[in-house]
C-alpha cells in the first residue's frame, strides 16, 4: 500500500488540499466549485485534517496554476519526499475504510451463508480492485460503496435513499446514470413516483445545467472525457454515425424493462450487464474496471461459471494496462527507487522490439470485449430461465 501509486492520487489530493486551505477560491476562482467539491474530494479533505500533523502537506500536495495531475511533480518532487511512503499509506487509508464498509454491506445482501462467503472472499482478493485502489491509488471504493449501499436500500425497500445514493454516485462518476432506467422501471410504482425518483437520481444533470449556463469554467457530462469514451466506437452509415455503446445499451435496457420481473436480482444483473457492455464497446481507464467488481462478486456467488471467465478477463486486463506504457508499469512503483523504476522498460516497449505491441494489446483488448459480451449473454439467459 505505501509503495505504489499513480499521479492521479496526488492530483485528487491536491484538489482536496485546495479545499482544505481555501486556495481553490483564491487561485482558481474562474473554475466551477463542482470541480473541487465532489464527494470523494470532500472525504479526502476531511481526512487531510487528521493528517495535518503527520505529513508536510504543502510540500507533498501543492503546486501552482493547475488542478490536474502533474507528472513532473509526481516523479520529481512527490516520490522523492522523505514522507512519500507515509503519505501514500495514509492517503489510501480512507479507501480501505470504504472498502471494508462495502464488504459489510455486501455481507447483508445475501441470505445464504455459502453465497455470502464466496462473495466476500472474491471481494477481498479480487486483483482488479486491489490494483485500481491500492496500486493505482484511485478513490473508486467510495463510489462503489455508494452503489452497493444503494443496492442494499433497494433490497430493503428504502427506495428514495436508493435513488439518492445512485444520484450521489452519478455526481462522482457518471456511470451511476447508466443504471437509472432499470432502477426506475423496477422500483417505481407509478408515474409520479418514477418522476420524483428520476429527479433525485439524476441530480447530476441539474448540476451540469448550472455549470453549463454559468460563466465559470466547468465540465459537464457532454464535455467530459467519459462521454467521449462512450461514443468512441462507431459505425459510419453514409456519413451518419451509429454509436455502438448507445445502440447496445438501448437494446439491453429495453430488453430488461420489457422482460422486467421486478425482482431485486434484476437490478444488480442489469448494472453488471450495462458495465460489461461499457467495457466491451468503450474506451476506459484501468481504474474504471473496478466499477463492476461488487456486482461481479454477487454474480460469481450465484453463477460459478463466471469465475473462469473473470480469470480470463483479468489476464486480458493485464495486457490492456500495457496501453499506458510506463505510467502504468514501473512508474507506479517509482517511490521505491526512482533511479530504477523511472527507467524500467514497460512491457509494451519490450514487446515492441519483436512485434508491434499495439497489435498484441488490441488482440487481448478484443478478447476482453468478447468475454464481457458473453457474460452479458449468461446474465440475460439466467433471467429467462427463472
Amino acid at each position, binding site marked *: 500500500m*505505501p509503495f505504489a501509486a499513480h499521479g492521479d492520487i496526488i492530483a485528487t489530493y491536491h484538489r482536496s488540499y485546495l479545499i482544505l486551505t481555501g486556495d481553490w477560491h483564491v487561485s482558481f476562482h474562474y473554475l466551477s466549485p463542482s470541480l473541487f467539491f465532489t464527494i470523494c474530494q470532500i472525504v479526502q479533505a476531511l481526512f487531510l485534517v487528521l493528517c495535518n500533523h503527520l505529513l508536510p502537506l504543502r510540500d507533498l500536495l501543492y503546486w501552482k496554476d493547475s488542478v490536474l495531475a502533474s507528472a513532473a511533480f509526481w516523479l520529481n518532487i512527490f516520490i522523492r519526499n*522523505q*514522507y512519500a*511512503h*507515509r503519505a501514500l*499509506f495514509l492517503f489510501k487509508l480512507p479507501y480501505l475504510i470504504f472498502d471494508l464498509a462495502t464488504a459489510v454491506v455486501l455481507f447483508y445482501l445475501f441470505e445464504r451463508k455459502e453465497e455470502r462467503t464466496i462473495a466476500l472472499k472474491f471481494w477481498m482478493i479480487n486483483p482488479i480492485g486491489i490494483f485500481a485502489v491500492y496500486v493505482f491509488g484511485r478513490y473508486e471504493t467510495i463510489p462503489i460503496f455508494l452503489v452497493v449501499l444503494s443496492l442494499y436500500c433497494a433490497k430493503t425497500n428504502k427506495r428514495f435513499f436508493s435513488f439518492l445514493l445512485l444520484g450521489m454516485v452519478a455526481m462522482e462518476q457518471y456511470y451511476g446514470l447508466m443504471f437509472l432506467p432499470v432502477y426506475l422501471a423496477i422500483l417505481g410504482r407509478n408515474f409520479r413516483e418514477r418522476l420524483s425518483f428520476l429527479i433525485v437520481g439524476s441530480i447530476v444533470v441539474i448540476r451540469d445545467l448550472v455549470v453549463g449556463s454559468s460563466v465559470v469554467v466547468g465540465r459537464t457530462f457532454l464535455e467530459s472525457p467519459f462521454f467521449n469514451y462512450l461514443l468512441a466506437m462507431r459505425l459510419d452509415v453514409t456519413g451518419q454515425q451509429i454509436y455502438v455503446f448507445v445502440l447496445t445499451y438501448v437494446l439491453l435496457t429495453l430488453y430488461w424493462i420489457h422482460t422486467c420481473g421486478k425482482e431485486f436480482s434484476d437490478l444488480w444483473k442489469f448494472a453488471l450487464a450495462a458495465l460489461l457492455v461499457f467495457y466491451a464497446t468503450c474506451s476506459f481507464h484501468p481504474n474504471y474496471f473496478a466499477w463492476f467488481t461488487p456486482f461481479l462478486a454477487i454474480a460469481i456467488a450465484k453463477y460459478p461459471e463466471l469465475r473462469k471467465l473473470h480469470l480470463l478477463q483479468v489476464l486480458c486486463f493485464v495486457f490492456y494496462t500495457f496501453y499506458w506504457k510506463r505510467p502504468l508499469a514501473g512508474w507506479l512503483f517509482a517511490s*521505491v*527507487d526512482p*533511479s*530504477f*523504476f523511472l*527507467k*524500467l*522498460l514497460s512491457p509494451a516497449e*519490450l514487446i*515492441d*522490439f519483436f512485434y*508491434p505491441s499495439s497489435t498484441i494489446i488490441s488482440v487481448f483488448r478484443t478478447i476482453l470485449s468478447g468475454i464481457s459480451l458473453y457474460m452479458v449473454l449468461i446474465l440475460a439467459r439466467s433471467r429467462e430461465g427463472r
Partner: protein
Amino acid sequence: MRRRILAMIISATISLGIVFNINVYVEDIVQDHSEKPIEGIYGTRSVGQIFVAHEDGLSGIAVFFATYGRVNTESMIFKLRSGAELETDIVSLVINARSIRDNQYYGFFFDEIRDSKGKIYYFFLQSPNSTEGNAISAWYSSADVYGEGSAYVGHKPIAGDLCFKTYCRRALSDVLKNLYPRILSDKVFFGTYFSSITVIVLLLVRYMTSRRSH
C-alpha cells in the same frame, strides 16, 4: 497445519530470492531527437554513433530505423567497439533487414558488459550486400543534441547524432539496496507499518490454525 505454514514461509522466501535475482533492462542513454533519416546503409557506407555509458551492465542498444516503407532483404551487421582507439569489436551481431520495421526502434541485445560505466563506446551498422533502393537507414538529428558523442558515417564523424537508446541490466535486488535508506529516513512510519503487518499476518495464521483444529 504448522508444516503447511512452514512450507508456505519457505516457498515464499525462495520465491522472493528468485524474483530479486531476476535481471531486467533499464534505460541508460536516451537520444530521441531526430528530424530525418541519415543516408542509406549499404556497400561500404556504415552508420554509427559514439556514446559514453552512464551505468554498469551495458547490454543493449536500440536504433530508430527508417525502411522507406519497403521490405529490405539483405543482412545487416551491428558492431560495438571499445578501447582506446575504438577498434576492438566486443559485439558483432547479424540480422536480416526484413525484421526491421519502419519508424520503430530495433534493439540489439548482447551479453552484459559489467564495468561499462564511464567508458566510451562506438557502435555502427553496415550492410555490404545492400544496394541503393534495397537498404535501410537510421533516423538522426543534425543538431548536436547528445553532447557525449556524435554520429559517424563511413567511420568519420559528422555533425549531429543518431536517434538511439542504450540499456543496461540491473538485478531487482538493487531496488532493495536503494529502498533501505528510504526506510531509515522514516523509521517511525515503517516501524509501525511493518509491526502492524506482522501482527495481522500472525492473527490470520492463528485464526486459520484454530479454524482447522475445530
